[in-house]
């Protein structure tokens, strides 16, 4: 049988398959990079937004809303000041407040943050789309010296239920003052969440106070270690301050009003933030870097497309005779143009499809692993409108890039007349 014009383009390309494959590969890799960055960005954004949910307000000492968000949710940085226990009690007593969870930060254990809180934290802290924290092993704490650890901390430090820990004041690694008058031990391990909870060591607020017995002056009191466990337990361990408070409202409708009321508390300056708003503001700051990354990967796609141009231009000499033969056997200029543009578009389309497939393959292989060991879901990594738009853009851009070489081929085939150049 005869061969169609498109078939002609195909056979010609197959005839130059090594260089064609290299070109397709270059386009495919650049498209895969671009889509990878785009999808990782979407996933990161979605994951980021879902670090905390179900909490209506976070209240802390006045600083900035990003600062408060960073230390209370992401455990990054430190609070410059705290809020008083009476202020916390007043928050809890408000009519429009359904629940409060106080948290106390500032200490660390072998590089992981220690957070003092109440067992209500495990009921009210939500992440993702209102997913509650769950225990992969054990239970919530109900004694001063009991601790609940995040999944990553458990894995990295090899802690299990019953593992004893020495928690001391300060952010350094444990060292000099390893004494067992404050015998913390693990009673619960949380399932992975993909949030900073995984790297947190949770103890009761009273446990934090107990850790600080002997540090009241800011330096270490040598007598602290001589106190027995029962003496420490006999102290009033109610904290004097907490770092921040997670607040749930009775009615979402009062959100702005409640927030304003808290922010204008006359007895103590407080800052109440709306987590989703603060997250959006934080993302806007980080978004610049992310857009830069996207722009760079966009340029890589352009480089991939230039490889199509290179391949077309280098093939022109090789194909000069081919074009003359086609002209002599009746090919019109439109056929020559079509052959060249079909080749350019075909290279772009093939590269785009392979790049798309590649990135789907990578995500489908890594997503289950990430979810299993880190609790990170990769939302939005399936095929989306972005893939379609990228494929279309790459193909159209490839065809446009083909116009130059196509016109050169056409001009030559017209100028050569019937004399076939060898």
């Amino acid at each position, binding site marked *: *049988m*005869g*061969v*169609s*014009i498109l078939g*002609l383009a195909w*056979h*010609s390309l*197959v*005839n130059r398959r090594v260089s064609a494959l290299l070109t397709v590969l270059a386009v495919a890799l650049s498209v895969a990079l671009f889509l990878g960055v785009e999808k990782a960005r979407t996933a990161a954004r979605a994951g980021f937004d879902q670090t905390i949910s179900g909490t209506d307000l976070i209240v802390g000492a006045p600083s900035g809303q990003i600062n408060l968000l960073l230390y209370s949710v992401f455990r990054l940085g430190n609070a410059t000041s705290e809020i008083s226990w009476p202020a916390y009690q007043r928050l809890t007593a408000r009519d429009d407040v359904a629940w409060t969870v106080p948290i106390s930060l500032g200490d660390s254990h072998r590089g992981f943050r220690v957070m003092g809180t109440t067992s209500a934290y495990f009921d009210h802290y939500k992440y993702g789309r209102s997913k509650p924290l769950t225990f992969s092993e054990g239970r919530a704490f109900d004694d001063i010296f009991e601790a609940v650890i995040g999944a990553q901390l458990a894995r990295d430090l090899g802690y299990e239920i019953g593992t004893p820990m020495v928690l001391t004041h300060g952010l350094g690694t444990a060292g000099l003052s390893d004494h067992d008058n404050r015998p913390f031990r693990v009673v619960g391990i949380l399932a992975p969440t993909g949030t900073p909870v995984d790297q947190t060591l949770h103890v009761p607020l009273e446990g934090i106070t107990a850790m600080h017995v002997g540090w009241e002056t800011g330096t270490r009191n040598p007598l602290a270690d001589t106190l027995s466990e029962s003496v420490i337990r006999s102290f009033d361990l109610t904290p004097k301050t907490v770092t921040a408070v997670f607040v749930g409202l009775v009615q979402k409708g009062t959100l702005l009003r409640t927030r304003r009321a808290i922010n204008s508390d006359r007895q103590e300056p407080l800052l109440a933030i709306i987590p989703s708003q603060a997250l959006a503001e934080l993302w806007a700051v980080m978004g610049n870097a992310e857009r830069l990354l996207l722009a760079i990967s966009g340029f890589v796609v352009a480089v991939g497309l230039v490889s199509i141009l290179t391949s077309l231009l280098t093939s022109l000499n090789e194909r000069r*005779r*081919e074009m003359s*033969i*086609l*002209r*002599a*056997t*009746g*090919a*019109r*200029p439109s*056929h020559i143009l079509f052959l060249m543009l079909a080749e350019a578009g075909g290279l772009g389309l093939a590269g785009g499809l392979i790049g798309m497939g590649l990135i789907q393959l990578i995500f489908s292989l890594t997503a289950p692993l990430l979810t299993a060991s880190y609790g990170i879901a990769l939302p939005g990594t399936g095929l989306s409108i972005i893939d379609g738009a990228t494929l279309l853009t790459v193909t159209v851009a490839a065809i446009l890039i083909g116009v130059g070489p196509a016109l050169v081929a056409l001009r030559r085939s*017209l100028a050569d*007349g*019937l*004399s*076939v150049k*060898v």
Partner: protein
Amino acid sequence: MEPQTCIELRDVTFAWPGEPALLDISRLTVSQGEKLFLKGASGSGKSTLLGLIAGVLSPRSGLISVLGQDQAQAGGSQRDHLRANRLGVIFQMFNLVPYLSVLQNVALPCRFSPDRARRVSENGGVTAEARRLLAQLGLHEPSLLSRSVSALSVGQQQRVAAARALIGQPDLVIADEPTSALDADSRDRFIALLNAQVEASGATLVFVSHDGGLAGQFDRALDLTTLNRAARRQRTD
């Protein structure tokens, strides 16, 4: 009854860009069904003249009437149309598209010309017609059709090119030194077979070569050097 005119040239001049006039032909007429031999030294402008007739080049001045169409006046697409539908072209060498099979090469003109495709389908389809032409040009082997053209000898390649030029019954076949790469035996055989096929289809043939010894195998022979006033003026060496 006078035979009808297939090609008529009047006061045709042509020059490649930036060069002196290469062709200046006051009159050349080829009748329909005629087999014309055109002799000319290498570089004398034979291929250029064929390009003018085929409508891939345009003259600087003059009239070039081919099968009733004035190539000098016709637009590019009209010339393309005429060439696709009614002309067959054979080159000196490298006639074939290297990545297509023998059959695909022979069928190529039908792809560009609906007229030829129709005539071929009236004659039993592309494959049958290609096989018939190849057989009559001395390529009988059935397995040949699907073979890669690079596996063929030069003589075989030229006959495949002839079959391609002849498929779909063109009115005019242009052959540009198709035998210069062949040895004496296959050259004479090629010309005989080509002539027979051209005759059978009633087409006109313009066959150019630098080898004047071939002239006897055609109806009429002309020397481009005497025909071309530009060459006479320039005193060739």
